[in-house]
C-alpha cells in the first residue's frame, strides 16, 4: 500500500516544494527555507529516534557545530561545500564520541548525555569569545555562490536549500533501504531478536546516532548562510526540544514525518500569532492533546484515517510498524 502511495506522494511533495515559494513575499520564502533546513535536522533525529529508538536532545547543538564551522571557515575564504562537509564530519565524530560511552549502558542514558552536551555547547559558544564571538555571535556570513548561481536573493537560496534537501533525503532513503538500514528497523521492531540474529545492536545504534547528528551538522551548515548571523541562543536546549517535537508530532519512524512535523512546529505558532500572548499556551495544549489521543503523530493519524476509508488495504496486524517503511 505504502509503496503505491509513495509513488504518488513523492512527486506531489516535490512539485509542491518547487512551486511553494513562487509569487510569495521575501519573508515567506525565507520561512520556507528555514522550514526545509529544520526538516533536514529533524530527518537526522528521526533516524536516531524513529529507527534506532534512542532519544537525542542535542540536535540543536549539532546544528550549532555545523553552523559555527561553516561560518568560521567560509569567512576565511573557504568554499561553502568544503566548510559544510567539515562541519558534517565533525558532527559525525562528536556523535561517535558522545554515543560510545552512553550506549554502553542501556536505558535513557543517551538522552541525559546529549542533554548535558547541548547545555555545555551553549556555555562554550557563549563564553569563548575569541572563537565564537560570544553573545554577540558572528555576523556577515557569506552566502555560497555555486558556478552560475548566486544565492544572495531569497528565491535562489530557497532552491539551493531545496537541492541540498533532496540530496540529503535521497541519501537517507538509501540508508534506510540498505541492508544497514534494515538492521536499524530490525533493531527498533525487536532489539532482542535483532541481537539473536547476529546484529551488533550497539554498533548499529551508535551509527544511527552519529549519522543523525551529521544531518544536524548539515542543517547548521545551511542555517548559517540563510540567516547570515549566528549566536549561541539559536542552538540552546530549547531548540533541541523543538526538533524532537517536530519528529514526534510528525510521526517518529515515518520517512515523511519530519516534513509535516516541522511545518506544524514552525508554522503553527505563526498561524496562532493573532492570539498574541496565548499562542504558546494553545500550542502546548494542542501538542499534549495530540500525544494523548494519537501518540504516533500526524502521519499515524493520517494512516489511521486512510485505513478506515480503504479497508481493503488492511495490513497484517503484527506488522503495522514494519510494513510502513
Amino acid at each position: 500500500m505504502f509503496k503505491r502511495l509513495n509513488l504518488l506522494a513523492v512527486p506531489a511533495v516535490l512539485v509542491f516544494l518547487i512551486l511553494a515559494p513562487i509569487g510569495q513575499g521575501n519573508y515567506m520564502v525565507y520561512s520556507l527555507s528555514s522550514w526545509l533546513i529544520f526538516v533536514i535536522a529533524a530527518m537526522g533525529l528521526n533516524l536516531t529516534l524513529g529507527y534506532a529508538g534512542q532519544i537525542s536532545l542535542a540536535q540543536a547543538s549539532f546544528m550549532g557545530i555545523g553552523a559555527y564551522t561553516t561560518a568560521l571557515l567560509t569567512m576565511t575564504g573557504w568554499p561553502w561545500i568544503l566548510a559544510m562537509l567539515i562541519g558534517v564530519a565533525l558532527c559525525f565524530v562528536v556523535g561517535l564520541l558522545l554515543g560510545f560511552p552512553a550506549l554502553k549502558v542501556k536505558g535513557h542514558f543517551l538522552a541525559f548525555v546529549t542533554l548535558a552536551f547541548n547545555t555545555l555547547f551553549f556555555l562554550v559558544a557563549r563564553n569563548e569569545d575569541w572563537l565564537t564571538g560570544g553573545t554577540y555571535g558572528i555576523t556577515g556570513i557569506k552566502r555560497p555562490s555555486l558556478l552560475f548561481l548566486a544565492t544572495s536573493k531569497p528565491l535562489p537560496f530557497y532552491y539551493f536549500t531545496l537541492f541540498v534537501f533532496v540530496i540529503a533525503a535521497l541519501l537517507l532513503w538509501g540508508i534506510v533501504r540498505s541492508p544497514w538500514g534494515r538492521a536499524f528497523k530490525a533493531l527498533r521492531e525487536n532489539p532482542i531478536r535483532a541481537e539473536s540474529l547476529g546484529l551488533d545492536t550497539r554498533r548499529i545504534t551508535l551509527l544511527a546516532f552519529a549519522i543523525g547528528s551529521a544531518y544536524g551538522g548539515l542543517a547548521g551548515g545551511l542555517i548559517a548562510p540563510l540567516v547570515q548571523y549566528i549566536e549561541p541562543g539559536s542552538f540552546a536546549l530549547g531548540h533541541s526540544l523543538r526538533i524532537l517535537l517536530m519528529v514526534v508530532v510528525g510521526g517518529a519512524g515515518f520517512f515523511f514525518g519530519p516534513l509535516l512535523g516541522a511545518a506544524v512546529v514552525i508554522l503553527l505558532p505563526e498561524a496562532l500569532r493573532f492570539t498574541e500572548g496565548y499562542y504558546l499556551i494553545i500550542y502546548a495544549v494542542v501538542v499534549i492533546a495530540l500525544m494523548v489521543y494519537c501518540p504516533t503523530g500526524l502521519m499515524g493519524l493520517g494512516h489511521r484515517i486512510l485505513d478506515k476509508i480503504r479497508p481493503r488495504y488492511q495490513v497484517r496486524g503484527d506488522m503495522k510498524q514494519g510494513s510502513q517503511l
Partner: protein
Amino acid sequence: MAQFFQVLLSGLSTGSIYALAAIGFVLVWQTAQTVNFAQGEFVMLPAFFVLAGVHVLGLPLWGALLLGLAASVFVLGFLFKRMIVEPMSKSTGLPLIIATMALSILLKESAKQFYAAEAQPFPSLFPQSTFNVAGAVFSIQDVLNLLVSLAVVVALTLFLDRTKTGRSMQATAQNPGVAEILGIDIKRMTLYTFLINATLAALASFLISPIYLAKFSSGESLGLIAFIAAIVGGFNQIRGALAGGLLIGVLDNLTATYVTAQYRAAVPLVLLVIIILFRPEGLLGTSEGRKV
C-alpha cells in the same frame, strides 16, 4: 576558612531544596517509568499560586501558603495524573515524555501570561537575620531551609518504609503486576505518588522562591538540576537523590566562589557525564540489572 563554611552552608541549604525536587522526580520515575520534563515548572508554579493568594485574594501569608499547597497538589498531582499520565499509560514512553515537555511550555507560558513576566519578590518564611560562629556569618534562613528539607525527607522515608500505605506504594513501583495480585489498589498508590511529588515540588518552591525570586522561566534550570541530582545520586534511591541534590548545591556554590562564575552551570553537567561514564547506577544507586 570562615568564608568556606559560609559557602558550604548556603550550598547545603539550596542543595537540600534541589533534593526535594529530585526526590519527587525519582518517585514519579519509579512509579510511572517516565521522565517528567516539567519538574522544574512544577517547582516554579506553586510560588505563583501563593503570590496570587496574597496579592489577588488578599489572604494572609499562611493562608496563601495553604492555598498554594492545595492548588499545587490538585493541579500538579491530581490533574497531571488524570489528564496526561493515565490516558497515555498504554503507549510507549516517548509520547508521554513529549507531553511533559509540552506541559512545561504550558505552565511556563501560563505563569507569564496570567501573572507576570518579571521576576516577583516572594515573602520569606523565616527571619532574615544572621548569626556569627567563629567569625563566619550564617543566615538563619539557610539553616532553617536545610532543617525543614531534611525533616521532610526523613518524614517521607519513614512513611514509605514504616506504614502499610508506604510499603504498598513501594511494591507498586517495583512490580505493579505482583502488587495487584497481592490485593494492592495500584491505581490509588500511583495517584499517591503523584500527589507526594506535587507536595514536594510545592515545598521546594516555597523554600527556594524567597532566595531566587519567583520567575516564570526559573523552572528550566531547576528542572535540569533536579534531573542531574537524581541521576548522580542514583535514579532508584531516595537517599541517592538527597545526596545528589546536596552535592550539586555545594559544588555549585564552591565553583562560583572559588573557580569560575562563567562556567558555574557546567559543573553539574560535567558531574553528570563523569557519573554516567564511571558509575551509571549513580553514587548510591543499585544496578537495575538487564531489562528484557
